């Protein structure tokens, strides 16, 4: 639901050119922890004062409950081209990602599936993915017809330069929908291979994609796990899918350790622990990888400005080491208290 998207500042495949949720929200109605109903922003692209609309988007429900949202709409593009670039190796596919952006092209979407994942997806969805490839890139271009045609040709050239063995283009909307069906149902397809999977959401600078994929391969080997990669390559937003059987406590432990290893690596190369899924409970104790005590202290003081008693989403977002501070901040914010909020 849109409210959930706002709370998480959700993304998705088409954020590469169009931005994430916060780039499209101009106003909202919020129920504050006190029960007070307030409005931030409006229909204008900007309103006077602090950008509280922007601050509340992605706050994971810790400062208020959003009940109404005003969003900008985009005009549907005149033309869309969807390409499937097929590579023998995952390295070639990964290098192509930054080569496309270096060529001055910003696709609407630039998604990657490794060979192991695309075979699982093909078995489940029959999307037409090649079963013998090392990786594929799903590339979508949108805009004016002339521009899209030129970009499609330029992207094809870049892919070939980067050793793509074939670049297919969806001939019509049916073929396009089929290619996207494979991508969008990929997580579900994992259910055919294992009882469960653990999806990560780390982010790396896009030039680090080849290195991080190698690292993930090493993690899989080290822990004896199967890890598939399907992700928003254009943004550097990874979704390694770690397959496991939750009935086996040892596997569960290994999976959690593998997930942590991957996110630590993402942070070590200048990335983040989450690109669109949020922190919540699961990743709250990884926040110190990214943020200092003082960073977290500032964030906590802002949370306490609105939600000092911690009545909204208690325990979320902040590491357990900060929970004492969270509990300690039980007195109401003096400014809001004076306003009866």
């Amino acid at each position, binding site marked *: 639901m849109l409210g959930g998207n706002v709370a998480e500042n959700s993304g998705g495949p088409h954020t590469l050119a169009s931005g994430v949720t916060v780039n499209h929200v101009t106003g909202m109605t919020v129920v504050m922890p006190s029960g007070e109903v307030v409005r931030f922003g409006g229909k204008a692209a900007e309103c006077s004062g602090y*950008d509280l609309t922007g601050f509340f988007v992605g706050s994971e429900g810790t400062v208020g409950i959003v009940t109404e949202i005003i969003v900008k709409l985009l005009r549907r593009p005149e033309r869309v081209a969807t390409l499937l670039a097929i590579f023998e190796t995952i390295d070639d596919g990964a290098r192509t990602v930054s080569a496309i*952006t270096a060529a001055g092209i910003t696709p609407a979407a630039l998604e990657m599936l490794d060979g192991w994942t695309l075979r699982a997806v093909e078995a489940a969805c029959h999307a037409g993915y090649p079963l013998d490839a090392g990786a594929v890139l799903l590339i979508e271009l949108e805009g004016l017809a002339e521009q899209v045609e030129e970009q499609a040709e330029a992207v094809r050239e870049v892919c070939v330069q980067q050793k793509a063995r074939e670049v297919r283009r969806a001939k019509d909307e049916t073929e396009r929908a089929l290619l996207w069906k494979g991508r969008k149902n990929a997580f579900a397809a994992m259910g055919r291979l294992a009882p469960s999977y653990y999806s990560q959401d780390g982010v790396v600078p896009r030039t680090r994609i080849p290195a991080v994929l190698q690292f993930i391969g090493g993690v899989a080997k080290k822990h004896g796990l199967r890890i598939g990669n399907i992700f928003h390559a254009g943004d550097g937003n990874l979704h390694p899918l770690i397959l496991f059987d939750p009935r086996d406590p040892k596997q569960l432990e290994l999976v959690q350790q593998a997930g942590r290893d991957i996110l630590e690596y993402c942070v070590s190369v200048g990335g983040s622990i989450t690109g669109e899924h949020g922190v919540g409970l699961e990743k709250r104790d990884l926040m110190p990888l990214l943020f200092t005590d003082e960073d977290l*202290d500032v964030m906590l003081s802002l949370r306490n400005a609105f939600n000092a008693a911690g009545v909204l989403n208690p325990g979320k977002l902040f590491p357990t080491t900060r929970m004492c501070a969270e509990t300690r901040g039980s007195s109401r914010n003096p400014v809001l208290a004076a306003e009866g909020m």
Partner: protein
Amino acid sequence: MSTAEISLDVVRELRAICGEEYVGDESSVLKGRADDPDRKFARELLETYKTVTPGSAEEISAILRLANERGFNVRPAGGRTKQTPQWGGPVVVVNTNRLTAVEHYDPADLTVGIGAGMTVAHLNAMVGQDQLMFGGDPPFGDRGTVGGLLATASHGPLRHGYGAVRDYCIGVRFVTGDGRRAKGGGRVVKNVAGYDLMKLLIGSHGTLAVITSASFKLFPAPRQTKTFVCEFATWEEALKFRDVMRRSALAPMCMELVSPAARRLIRREAMSDTWAICVRASGSDAVLTRYRQGLGPAVTREVVGEKETDLWQGIENCCERERMHVRMDVIVPPGRVACVLKTLDDITDQRFGYAAVGRIGLGHLRVFTPKGTIGGTQPANVFISKLREQVKTEMGVTVESWVTPWPIAPPHLASMRAVKQALDPNNILFGRAIF
């Protein structure tokens, strides 16, 4: 308020923090700008206040902690292109000009991290070598700093095609009013870890924290552009054309309304008495031909090369040529722009004409009204008052060089005060008057 009110003890401590050569009076800092008549106000201001030019976030933190202990106010300053007068209490101006380090830059990642004191022009020159560009083109980018751009949420014509700075700022480091050094976001283009503190600081006019550095997405620089000047007898006709454009598939880099008076301020447009919409497009010859066809008979002139660069610099900086005007940014839902222009028509006459430029597709207008008076009242005050009645709170208005940058009180003042209390509990940054 004079420098005498900053005690000698405080000055000694400031020198101990930053080094003696970086503590002084404003007049010494502005040396060399005395030929600029528009600096008269600033010069008086700067001669009056103590200045500090720290070299790091650590030094800024120490200054702010000292301010909290000793009870003086701090005013962050960058390129001083949107100078705001100070009010009440002893003040130290903190210049960010020495914070110019490049924290990270990999052209292939299309991201950059830089100190808040770097000018927008310097940033563009740096990334331009790699055929990249920064999305912001605020007025006076040659001396306006990146920190100032963030603090004031400034923008120029590129906002139409590339978004606002809130859309491409991916991380920020800052020192809160109570002296805590912190950050939000990071270096990657997609990141939802922790609160989006960039949004809070962008457009906060330095009232919450001193921004020390920031990271941005960059964009590929267009290889070829062309500007189509479309002319109209009235703004009503211009707005009809805008609406046609908004419904079309065309997606130009810039689409700027320029009023007749604004055209007279732009040297190359001096002879024009019509309203203009300048549409800048990028792409191959085929794409530009498509734009020309799509824009139709409204196009009276096509501009490329140096003339095109001059035209857009003129639009960005046209207010600089008119020193006797109040400058305001008004943003309304695009459908309410007519209401803004009608209000301007109603309150002005031949003697007190107004000038306006703006990102008309987004509902933005930069309005210049004369500083003189109409019936004893400044046109800007009359305009804002009328606008408040007609558009109510569905808009954003900021005014340069007024006591508060927000002349129309935001509807969420209590929440704003709560945020201020959380980051600057002693009102060290700009005092209380902003609300």
